[in-house]
């Protein structure tokens, strides 16, 4: 298939679906709209599969299937798309989670048309973020996502939906405004103005140290990092997440945890690291510290929750801490500027990427399982559950699998990412590695304790016991798909590693070279100053 058409179709197929849905469907015919919206997401998923299996070459490290069209030539803005090993897995994850959460959207009962339209627009935004190679375009898609998300939480959410929605919006907007300023910094500092928004060319310039001076790199990196850390979310800017997750309807929680959080990590690895390698390395310790704090803090916070969904939300903070940790374990020999144990850093990067995919699957699964039980008994109080394993054995079994995946049990997807990250952290700083590893124990603690309170026990004593009906076909299919993937990725992680590794090594090498150039520049300046 023509790559230009394929990539464009992946981004805009959901929008086209949304348009058809908005104009042609009768808003009383709920089932038809649901099926049509589901079909749209399924087609998008199919297109991404075609992209992965048919067009994408796993062993090529560089950018593939690049598409360039003029958009605003006066401002050097291009419609520039492409995939590499870093974005490919996330594109797949996005289309998969979108399809599954659209499947979970049968539980939405009011204003179905509006919901479906916004949902599909959201998918366009997400796809665009992962496929855009022009900073301007990236920014546009990044912001386009906010609008539907605000309404999806604000209209279809729980009791404190309005508060949660505005909090989510404000946090992300604050971050993206910082990103905007950083974008201007890059634009005005490129030697070739025509490439001012071209992420590939900007990264190449950064490799030779000619993009930004070391001090400017630190400034730009901090701005980008805050923007992405809010999305990730990392301590201390994570506070929007528990509110947004708890108030959002189940399918939207799945999207939030499964895809939106990944954008933070993706932004760091696609934009912040390649464009400001010196800044990234300069702040590596700070980032590692933030990552470790997020892991431990998130786990302790999860331990303290009595709301089932809030527990899963805090587990996301903890798990995404591993992503940040894996990205940041970049250790340098201060004298020569060379990277020490480069293969460990690459291992950390791989682990972080894998953790993003694994968390996308396990946390979407956990949120879905919470949603299933909430749809039946309309509460989420951990202390009022118990005995669900007896009443709904299939549900209990699938839940146990997904929660174990989140816990990081060997053989399931969560294990691989965590272990890679913790191993590479050891080479960075053994003490921090021990702290990070102890997070695994806390994770086991809150997950096992939650499972004990919800699924085990003699009998269910909470409200609405009569509504505890077994899962229907649709629900079983969604949970089953997620669990199957969790197992497959846990047993054969190479499916993803094969795709990711070449591009990640390339990125790491480029960043190392960029750092060395900038550090050499800095040394020269100092020598001149001494003279």
């Amino acid at each position, binding site marked *: 298939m023509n790559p230009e058409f394929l990539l464009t179709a992946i981004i805009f197929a959901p929008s086209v679906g949304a348009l058809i849905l908005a104009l042609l469907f009768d808003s009383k015919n709920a089932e038809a709209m649901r099926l049509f919206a589901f079909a749209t997401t399924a087609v998008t998923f199919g297109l991404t599969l075609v992209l992965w299996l048919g067009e994408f070459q796993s062993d090529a490290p560089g950018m593939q299937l690049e598409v360039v069209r003029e958009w605003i030539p*006066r*401002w050097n803005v291009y419609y520039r798309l492409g995939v590499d090993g870093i974005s490919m897995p996330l594109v797949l994850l996005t289309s998969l989670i979108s399809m599954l959460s659209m499947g979970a959207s049968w539980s939405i009962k009011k204003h179905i048309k509006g919901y479906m339209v916004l949902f599909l627009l959201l998918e366009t935004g997400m796809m665009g973020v992962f496929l855009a190679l022009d900073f301007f375009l990236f920014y546009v898609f990044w*912001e386009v996502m*906010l609008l539907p998300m*605000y309404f999806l939480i604000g*209209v279809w959410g729980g009791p404190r939906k309005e508060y949660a929605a*505005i909090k989510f*919006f404000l946090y992300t907007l604050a971050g993206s405004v910082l990103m905007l300023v950083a974008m*201007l*910094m890059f634009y005005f500092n490129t030697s070739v103005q025509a490439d001012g928004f071209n992420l590939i060319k900007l990264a190449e310039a950064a490799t030779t140290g000619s993009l930004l001076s070391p001090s400017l790199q630190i400034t730009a990196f901090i701005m980008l990092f805050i923007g992405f850390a809010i999305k990730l979310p990392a301590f201390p800017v994570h506070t929007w997440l528990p509110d947004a997750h708890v108030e959002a309807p189940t399918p939207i929680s799945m999207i939030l945890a499964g895809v939106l959080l990944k954008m933070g990590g993706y932004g760091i690895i696609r934009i912040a690291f390649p464009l400001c390698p010196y800044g990234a390395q300069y702040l590596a310790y700070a980032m590692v510290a933030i990552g470790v704090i997020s892991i431990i803090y998130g786990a302790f916070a999860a331990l303290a929750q009595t709301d089932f969904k809030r527990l899963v939300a805090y587990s996301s903070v903890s798990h995404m801490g591993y992503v940040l940790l894996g990205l940041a374990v970049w250790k340098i020999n201060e004298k020569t500027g060379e990277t020490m144990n480069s293969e460990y850093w690459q291992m950390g990067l791989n682990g972080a990427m894998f953790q993003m995919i694994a968390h996308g699957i396990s946390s979407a699964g956990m949120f879905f399982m919470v949603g299933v039980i909430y749809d039946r008994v309309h509460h989420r109080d951990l202390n009022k559950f118990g005995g669900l394993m007896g009443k709904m054995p299939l549900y209990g079994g699938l839940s146990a699998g997904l929660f174990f995946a989140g816990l990081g049990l060997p053989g399931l997807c969560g294990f691989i990412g965590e272990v890679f990250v913790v191993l590479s952290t050891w080479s960075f700083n053994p003490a921090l590695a021990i702290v990070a590893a102890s997070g695994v124990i806390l994770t086991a603690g809150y997950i096992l304790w939650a499972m004990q309170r919800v699924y085990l026990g003699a009998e269910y004593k909470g409200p609405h016991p009569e509504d505890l009906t077994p899962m229907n076909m649709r629900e079983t299919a969604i949970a089953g798909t997620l669990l199957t993937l969790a197992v497959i990725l846990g047993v054969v992680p190479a499916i993803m590693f094969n795709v990711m590794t070449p591009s990640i090594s390339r990125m790491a090498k480029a960043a190392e070279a960029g750092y060395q150039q900038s550090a050499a520049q800095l040394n020269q300046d100092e020598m001149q100053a001494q003279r």
Partner: protein
Amino acid sequence: MLFPQLLDKLISETTSLSLPGFSVELCLSATIVAMLMMRLVNLDRFVPTSVTAVLGAFAALVFTWLQFRQIGAADAIVSQKIFTGLLIHDTFTVFFRAFLSLFLLLTIALTSLTGIPDNEDGPDFYSLLFGATIGLMIMASANSLLMLFVGVEMASVPSYAMVGFLKGRKPSSEAALKFVVYGAGAAGVMLYGISLIAGVLGTVDMSLLAARLGEAAAGGTGGLSDPELRAVSLGILLVMVGLAFKLSLVPFHFWCPDAFEGASAEVAGFLSVASKAGAFGLLVRLALALSGAPGTESLMIAFGVGIGFIACVTTTFGNLAAYSQTNLKRLLAYSTIAHAGYMVMAVSALLVMSNSVQAAAMQIDINRTVEGLLYYLFVYLFMNLGAFAVVAIARNHTFSEEVDSFKGLVGQSPTLCIVMLICMFSLVGMPPFGGFVGKLMIFASAFKAGDIHWFMYVVVAFGALNTVFSLVYYIRVLKTMFMDERPADARPVPVHLGSLESIYVVALAAFVLLLGLLPQFLSATAGAAAQSLAKF
């Protein structure tokens, strides 16, 4: 030269250059006369005045288009002084004529949809509207300090009357009175400033100001210790006060919320867009006329930084004050103040850049700054008029302009709500709407000006921060419309998708979206307008 020869030359210049260059304004004047004459002979019973007005505004638009074509066909950049140098006819002028005629047309369309004014008052109202528009056009094309004053007054006086047009309503009269008193004060201050500038520099011709300023500065220190420069600086400051009043910049903004609340939404929309646009045209001309005089660079950069400071204060104040508003027009008034602040950032960047030593090398960035300002104005036209139009249309059903009267409106007229959503998100500056492109252009210029003076980085930081601030109150309105339940006793607002009102607002929203997705065409036109002001 003998007197008859002089007379001949004047006549031939007037008929061959000045009058064709002034055709748009003449067309609007003729429409005023036609509207008043038609009432005299009772013709307005048969042909509603709004129809005459629409025809007049449309004819003006056609004349502008002809001027555009003529200027586009010329080989060199057109910059013609007309009426013996009182006005200037260039692409910039024509751009503003197009802007104002288009806006006039849209405002007339809105007023005839919402029924303010009724047919009896039509000729009065439309005469005022046309008169103000002519004044604004003169402001944007002024090449003489005298015309600057004439333009400002010609635009202001009809505005006072329009604010008080709802004669029976007490708040309306109060607002008009407040507006008049403030306006008169500002006009007096401005006139004094003009007399200082003209007195020291010996000319009112704006194209000579920079050269005369350079002569005045020659041999001196170039700073405020030079008495001549001190007097001129005071004069510039006072003229700026007058313009700041028109732009409702802090601390000269007090009239704005009251006037907007008292006036009808249609008039408020006119004031917030057109009168800002005219004032910006004038401000850009004045800033460039004063720039580039040798010896005064640091003084002018200081002026630019000062304007940047005012811009920061204005945006922040406007956004924060909008938080607690319960009346939607008042909220939009504060939003107008904040947006004037964003746009003034461009003027500040313009002054800083065109007075730097690298001004010649930065010409392209200077052009970009003006281009960004013009683009922002155009987007602002659609998004702000869209917001005011929704308020006006809903008011005709609910008889209220309170935010609460919009509760749960999405259930009854989703079109109005979605248009409001697009306009408000564009006002916040979110892609893919036009407001984002405009804002980005202005921030980029201010960022570039940071190369010259560090304070411009602070300006960018304030602009970025304010984008976040502004989200809160815009989204509160949207929350009310989309998420609250409509109270059972609320008056219904049945505006269907096919109705004329819906088509009107949807067209405005479509332009907001279009300007965000395809900025190329308009930014090229705005760029050409900016190019015609270029000095190097």
